[in-house]
């Protein structure tokens, strides 16, 4: 018999290392010889889109076309330490470090322009599209390219460091402010359960994700789809089948992650609420997108079958076991 159910799941997620640990990101910005601007950070692109999102934050702060930014994040000899690409921290933490470094760079380049243009102050100087000019007299202007030629031996550069604020929790009471910022989401699913085979089929889902501000909405949607698929696999398919410390399912023919046919189109809704301490309000969302999926599916399975599954994964056999047990107890 096929039975349908609706379930929801909410979650919150504290980003960053947390618990008062020095969560430091560094960034360096430098004018290159061709007038382009290089950003050096130790923020790893693992596929989440850090490189693109961080370039966008840099471009925004530098008021520069993103194509004129050179982004170096691959070599420890060239880049400062920006912490790990984990804890959903790169957009917020390294994004802030880049923003600060770029703001500092804007001041440095204004100073350089002041000298080159023979002005008596940097006041009123504007940086825009690779040019520094005086707002009240726009003829006073100099391009980054020209500046790079003048300052060849005295490279224009700046640094930025950001340390996230968290408070270590008390050892006995756990009281403290362990993470900041928090990211929130809500997910709802409609599933269909076959009460003979225990197969759970996903039919429909809507997923609302707080992002602070979406630096690149399409990348955010990609994270939401991917997070959903991982949550789906975690809940319904993936089982290492551990036996006395040995993983029986240790390859892809046995450890089943969702295929394209197991996924469905998700209605992804991005909720924006810019966070004042974040770069342009943007918070990280990498990890949170996977969290509410399982709970929503579990609640939907209950709604469909009246059976509470308290042990993951809900493989067909595990679900059937739970269904049989609940039928037995009902019979008594």
């Amino acid at each position, binding site marked *: 018999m096929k039975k349908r159910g609706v379930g929801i799941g909410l979650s919150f997620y504290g980003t960053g290392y947390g618990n008062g640990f020095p969560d430091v990101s560094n960034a360096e910005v430098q004018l290159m010889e061709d007038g382009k601007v290089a950003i050096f950070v130790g923020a790893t692109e*693992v*596929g*989440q*889109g850090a490189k693109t999102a961080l370039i966008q934050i840099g471009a925004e702060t530098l008021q520069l076309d993103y194509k004129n930014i050179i982004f170096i994040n691959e070599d420890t000899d060239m880049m400062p330490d920006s912490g790990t690409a984990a804890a959903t921290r790169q957009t917020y933490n390294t994004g802030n470090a880049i923003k600060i470094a770029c703001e500092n760079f804007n001041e440095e380049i204004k100073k350089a322009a002041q000298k080159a243009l023979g002005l008596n102050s940097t006041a009123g100087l504007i940086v825009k599209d690779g040019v520094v000019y005086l707002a009240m007299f726009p003829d006073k202007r100099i391009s980054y390219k020209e500046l790079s030629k003048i300052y060849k031996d005295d490279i224009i550069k700046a640094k930025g460091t950001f340390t996230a604020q968290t408070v270590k929790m008390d050892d006995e009471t756990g009281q403290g402010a362990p993470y900041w910022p928090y990211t929130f989401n809500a997910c709802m699913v409609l599933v269909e359960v076959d009460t003979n085979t225990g197969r759970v089929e996903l039919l429909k889902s809507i997923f609302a994700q707080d992002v602070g501000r979406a630096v690149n909405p*399409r*990348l955010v*949607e*990609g994270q*939401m*789809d*991917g*997070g*959903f*698929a*991982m949550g789906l696999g975690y809940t319904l398919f993936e089982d290492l089948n551990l036996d006395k410390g040995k993983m029986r399912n240790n*390859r*892809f*023919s046995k450890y089943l*992650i*969702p*295929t*394209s*046919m197991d*996924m469905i*189109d*998700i209605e992804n809704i991005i909720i924006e609420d810019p966070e004042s301490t974040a770069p342009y309000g943007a918070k990280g969302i990498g990890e949170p997108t996977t969290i509410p999926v399982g709970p929503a599916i579990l609640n939907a399975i209950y709604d469909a079958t009246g059976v509470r599954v308290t042990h993951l994964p809900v493989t067909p056999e595990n679900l059937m076991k739970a269904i049989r047990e609940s039928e037995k107890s009902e019979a008594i």
Partner: protein
Amino acid sequence: MFIQLVINGINYKVDIDPNMRLIDLLRDKLGLVGTKEGCGEGECGACTVIMDGESVNSCMVMAFQADGSNITTIEGLEENGELHPIQKAYMEEGSVQCGFCIPGMIMSTKALLDKHPNPNREEIREGISGNLCRCTGYNKAINAAERAIEILKEGAKNEA
């Protein structure tokens, strides 16, 4: 032993070891490293190439079996420096994340569209169902296939 085959339009005569798989030939011998190995058992599809018109896992083909075949790998899709419409669509639709599955995914999409130029979303899902991806949840790859179909149609119209 020597085998002869065409890869991305180029004739090759290569000396192979009998134990070599097609993926080993492509990567280790010919430097075509865009074809990836993700599982070695035909499950993940990262090593997908098109062999005589059909998508195959190059980890599931022995190199000697490819003698006389015509093979297209991801490196063979660009023409005169112009990206293939599927490649363009993957970029535009944001279908790429870590990228490791992408060459295989694109080759499967190409094999699908070569045979069936107008699949619906479900048929696209089936067409890439032999390509595992852990990052994207597949949906943007399906969007890209749909976008590629549009680009290909526009191209055909312009030619006509």
